[in-house]
C-alpha cells in the first residue's frame, strides 16, 4: 500500500532498554499491539523472549535431519558402488560389501552433511550475511552487542504510524525514541 511511500527514507523507530525485564515487558506490548515487522535486539539470548515476541519455531531441525539422511545415504552408496560395483577387488578374502566395515565412514558423512546444513541453514534462514543494515548507522545501537536492549519497529509494518507507534514505544521505554532513516 501507500504507507511505505509516505515514510520513504524512514526505516523505523528504535527504543532502547537497560534491564532485561523492562525489555521483556516491552516485547510483549509490541507483540500484543499486533506489529509484525519489528524486532528485538539483545547482546545475548534471553530465555522467554521468543515467547514474549511470539516468534514461531524454526524449521532448521527438519533441514538438518534431511541433510543427515542424505549424508548417510551418500556414505553407504559411495562405499558400495566404488568397492563392490565399479571396481571390486578381493581383500583379505572378505566380502566385497559388508555393513560393519562401512559404518564408520557412513557415520562421518552423516555428521558432516548435517553439521554443514545446520550452519548454512541458520545463515540462510537469517538472511545472513547482510553487512549493511540501516540500524548500523545508529550510534547507540552499537551497544546492542554490549549491554543494552533494543526494540525496532519497521516503517513497512502495516500498523506503522509515525505518531501511534512512537507513543507506544515511549510508553514502554523510559528513553527518547530514535528515528532510523534508510538512506537511498
Amino acid at each position: 500500500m501507500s504507507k511505505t511511500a509516505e515514510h520513504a527514507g524512514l526505516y523505523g523507530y528504535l527504543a532502547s532498554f537497560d534491564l532485561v525485564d523492562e525489555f521483556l515487558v516491552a516485547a510483549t506490548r509490541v507483540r500484543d499491539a499486533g506489529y509484525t515487522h519489528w524486532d528485538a535486539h539483545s547482546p545475548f539470548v534471553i530465555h522467554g523472549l521468543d515467547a514474549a515476541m511470539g516468534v514461531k519455531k524454526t524449521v532448521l531441525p527438519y533441514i538438518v535431519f534431511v541433510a543427515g539422511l542424505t549424508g548417510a545415504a551418500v556414505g553407504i552408496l559411495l562405499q558400495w558402488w566404488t568397492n563392490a560395483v565399479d571396481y571390486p577387488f578381493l581383500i583379505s578374502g572378505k566380502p566385497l560389501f559388508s555393513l560393519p566395515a562401512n559404518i564408520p565412514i557412513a557415520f562421518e558423512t552423516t555428521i558432516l552433511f548435517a553439521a554443514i546444513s545446520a550452519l548454512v541453514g541458520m545463515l540462510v534462514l537469517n538472511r545472513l550475511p547482510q553487512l549493511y543494515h540501516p540500524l548500523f548507522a545508529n550510534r547507540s545501537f552499537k551497544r546492542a552487542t554490549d549491554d543494552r536492549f533494543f526494540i525496532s519497529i519497521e516503517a513497512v509494518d502495516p500498523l506503522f504510524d509515525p505518531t501511534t507507534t512512537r507513543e507506544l514505544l515511549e510508553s514502554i521505554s523510559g528513553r527518547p525514541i530514535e528515528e532510523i532513516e534508510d538512506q537511498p
Partner: protein
Amino acid sequence: MSSMNHHNGMAYWRSLDELEQTAEFREAVGREFPNDDWDRLPPATRRQFLKVMGASLALAGLTACRWPKEEIVPFAHRPEGRTPGVPQRFATSMEIDGVALGMLVTSFDGRPIKAEGNPLHPDSLGALSAVAQAEILQLYDPDRSRRLLLREGGQQYVKDWNEFESLAGGLFSGAGAAVLAGAFSSPTLGALRERFLTAHPEARWYEYEPISRDNEREGTRLVFGSMVRIHPHLGGAEVVACFDADPLFDHPAALRLVREFAAARNPESGTGGRLYVGESGFSLTGVRADHRVAVASSRVPALLAAVANSLVAEHGLELPAAAAGFAGATDHSATDDERHFVDLLAADLMTHRSRSVVLVGPRQAPAVHALAAVLNHALGATGSTITYTADPSPDRPSHLEAISDLARRIQDDEIETLLILGGNPAYDAPADLDFADLLAGVPVSIHLSLYDDETSKLCTWHLPASHSLESWGDGAAWDGTLSLRQPLIEPLYGGRSAIEVLAIAADDGPKSGYELVRESLSGRSGIPISGDFWRRALRDGVVGQSAWETVAPPTDPAGLASAVDGLRELLEVGRPTTEHPELVLVPDAKVFDGRFANNGWLQELPDAITKITWDNALLISPATARDIGVSDSEVASVEARGATLDLPVCVVPGMARNCAAVALGYGRAAAGQVGNGVGVDTYRFRTTAAPGILSGVAIRGTGRSYELATTQDHFAIDTIGFSERNLRVADLVRETSLDAYLENPEIIHEQEHHPPLISLWKDHEYEGEQWGMAIDLNACIGCNACIVACQAENNIPVVGRQQVLNQREMQWIRLDRYFKTAPGVTPDEVDDAEIVFQPMTCVQCENAPCEQVCPVAATQHTTDGLNAMVYNRCIGTRYCSNNCPYKVRRFNFFNYHKDLADTTKMQFNPDVTVRSRGVMEKCTFCVQRIEAVRIAARNDNRPIADGEIMPACAQTCPAEAITFGNLNDRSSDVSRSREEHRSYAALAELNIRPRTHYLARVNNPVDGMPSSVEGAGDHGKESG
C-alpha cells in the same frame, strides 16, 4: 611395457669408451632402468592431470607437456636366433680354487642378468651357491679396473695391450722369470703352461691359493703313496661322521652333497643317514648334526683317534698293520660329552660298516686325514660311500710350499720378472713371508686382475682381467668333468683372460680365448673337435663322460708309519685354556678368501649362524666370553703370532670352550668402494706354520664397543624376550626324531592347540590355478643361496651397513635362525644350543592381514591366490608391514637405486619393476615368472605343467627344499607335500591361511624316542 626399449641392449656389446662416453648410452640406461624417475615424473596421463589440477587450483591455465620422449633403437642387423625382449640362457662355468662350477646364465638383450646352476653339471645339478650367483654383480662392478697401468718410480702410466704385447715377448726369456698362478683345472691353461715352460725353460711356475684342500691331498699321499682326490657320497650313507669338516658347505662338490644328504634325510623316502659332527664352531653341517660335540680344532685329532681306538679295542675293527699305531694313540683327558660322542659313533660306524663315512676338514693336519682315510678303508667305505680319483696335478707342491719357495727366491733376488695370474698374494699370502714387501722389490712384476688391488698396486704392471662371464675358457669339475666357459658379453672394461695373457707370455702370440680353448680341446686325446661336438659341448656347458676314472689305491706302509708319528705329535697338544685360548681362521662364507669383498650382495648377506653383515667378528661361546671377560659387541684385542688386532666380539653358542673363530677375507684396503675397510684383515694372523689353527693366543677386552650389523637381534637379549623366544620356537619350527615320527607321524601336530579356524564370512572360492609353496625344513641347510637368487631376480637393492643397523635390510627372504636351548636356561647360562633354520618370506596368506589395512588397495588378492603388491599404487603408509605377523614386507626408506653406476643397473631384471623410495615391497612368488609361463601356455592353448614355473629361490635351492606349484592340482608336488604328515603352517592359529607350508624337521639321533629328544636338552648338557 618396458621391454620394447631393451633393443638398445646391443649398445653394451660395444667397447668400454663407448659405454663411458656416449650420452645415448646414459640416456638409454636411464630410460631403461628408471630408478624412481617415474614417480617424480609419472606417466603422461596422470602427470598432466595432476599438473592441470594444481594449476587450475591456482586458478591459472597451464598447458601440460609430455614426459621425456623415449627412443627405440633396433639392431641394424639383428643377430640370428635373437628375439628382442626375449631372454636367452647360455651354459658356462666359473672356477673357484681350481674347481669348475657349471652355470646357466640368463641374458636379456645381450646383458647377463642372472646366474643359475647347470643341471648337466655334476657339481651343480641345477643349483648354485650364493657366492657363484653373485658373480653377476661382480661382472658389472664399476670398481673393476678399466686400464693397463704401468707403475714406475712412483709414477703411474696408462698403457694399452699393444704396448704390453710388444714388451712381453722379451720379459720371460732367461732365468729369473716366474709365474704365480692360482689353482686351476683348465686344460687350456695347463697346455699353455707347458707351452710357456718349453718356450722359457728356465722360468719357474708357482700356484698359490690361500684356501685349499692340500692337507687332504697330502693325507691321501701318506696313506696310498700317491695323491688321490676324495669323493664322498652321502646318498647311501647311514652314518656320516664329520671332524671339523663341513661337506655341506665348504666342499667343492657341496651342492651335490647337499642334494644327496637332503634326499637321504627324507623320512618318507630316504635312508635317514645319521650325522655326527665334532667341530670347534657351528658349521652348516654341524647345524644338521644328530649328535654334535664342540671340541677345539686342535683336539679334533684326539677325538678321531679316540674313535679309532674304540673301534679297534671295543669293536674289533682291523686296521692295516702299519696303521695299528693309530689305535694306540689314546686320549685320557676326554670329557664325558666327548666320550659319549665317541662311544655312540664307534658303535654306529661298526654296525653300518661300508654304509658309513668319516670326513675330516681341510683345516686339519695331513695325519688326521690319513687316519680318516685308513678308517674309511677299514670300514669298507671305499667304493660305496667314498670313491677316489687320481689327483689331477700330483707333482704340484702344496700352495704354502709354493708361495714360501717363491718368497725365498724373491728374497735372494733370483726373480727378475714375476707374472701373477689373478689372485691377490700381497693381501692373502702368509703373514710371516712379508710377501707384500718382497713383491715391491721385484724388478718387473705383472699382475692380471679384475681389480687394481693390493697386489696390483705393488706391481710394475697391472693388467685388467676379463670376468669369467666375459671370456672363453674351460675347467674341470671336482670329479674331472670338462666344463666349458663362454662369454655372455664383450669385456666391459677391455680386460683379457689368464689364458690370453699367458699365450702372450708363452710367445704364442696374442690369440683369442676362443682359439686357445678350441686348440686345447682338439689337442686333448680322444676328443674329435667336430662342429657337432663343439656345439653340443657349448650348449651343455659340459663334455659328457669326461669325468676321471675312479681308482682303488693300495695302502702304503711307509707313509702310514709317518702319519702315525704325525698324529702322535698332534695328540701332545693340550686343551686350550682361558689364559691361552685357541683361534681358528676360517674362510668366509660370503667373501670367501676376500676375492668377493667388493660384492654388495655378499657383503649384505647375513651369515647363516651369526646373521652378521658387512663385518667379520670374533666368535666365542657365552661361557668362554664370561671366563675371558668380554661381552657381545665389545671390541677385543687379539694377539697371535706376533700380530695384534682389534676384533668385535660376537657371542654365539656352540663354540668349543676357550676356542675362538674369525673369518678371513675382510679388511681389504684396495677392494673397491664396497669392500674397502669392511671388517678386519685377519690374514695378519696367518703364518705358514699355522695357517688355520692358532693355539695359545691372547684375547683381552678393551671396554670399547662396536655395534655389529646383524639382521636378527644378537644372541644377547633380555630375559623376558629370551624365554618367550624359546617358548615360541618349538611351535614355529617344528621338529621331531625319526624314531618318534615313524612311530606316530602325527606327532608334530600334537603341539597345536588353538580353537577351530572358522571365518566370520563365507569363504572365497578359489578356482583355476592356485599357487602355493612348501618349504622342507628337514632339507634346508641354511646356505643362503635362495636369498641371493631372489636378490638377483627381483632387483632388490643393497642398502649398506648403516641401514642394516637401522633394521632396514631389503632381502625378501629372511633365513630365520633360532637357537634352541633346554627349557629354563637363562641367557647367561647358555653355552651350547641347537640351531634350527626357517626360510621366511611372504607366505601369501589367503586372508592376508596386510590387504585389508591398505587405504589405497595397493596390495590385494589375485584370482590365482597371490597376495599382489602393486608398487606403482603404493603410497607407503607402512600399515601393511605393521599388520604382517611374519614381518616379511620391506620398505624403501630411501631411493636406494639413486647412486647406482650405469653398469650396475645393467644387471636389473627388466621384467621386474625397480621400486622407488616410499614404496613397500615383498616376495611375489616371482610373479613375473608365473605370468611369463602363463602367457606362453595360453598362447599355445596348453595347461601349465607342474614344475614349469620355478621361483628363483626354488630353482637354485641345492637341497630342493622349496616346492612350488598349483594347489588346486591334487597331483602336483606341492599339493602332495602339503598332504604329508610333516606339513604345517606357521602361525596357523591366526586363521590367515598362509599359502606357504613348512615340512617339519626330523632329526635322527640314536634312541630318538620322544622321552630322550628334548633335542636342545641334551645338546645343552653336552660340552656345557
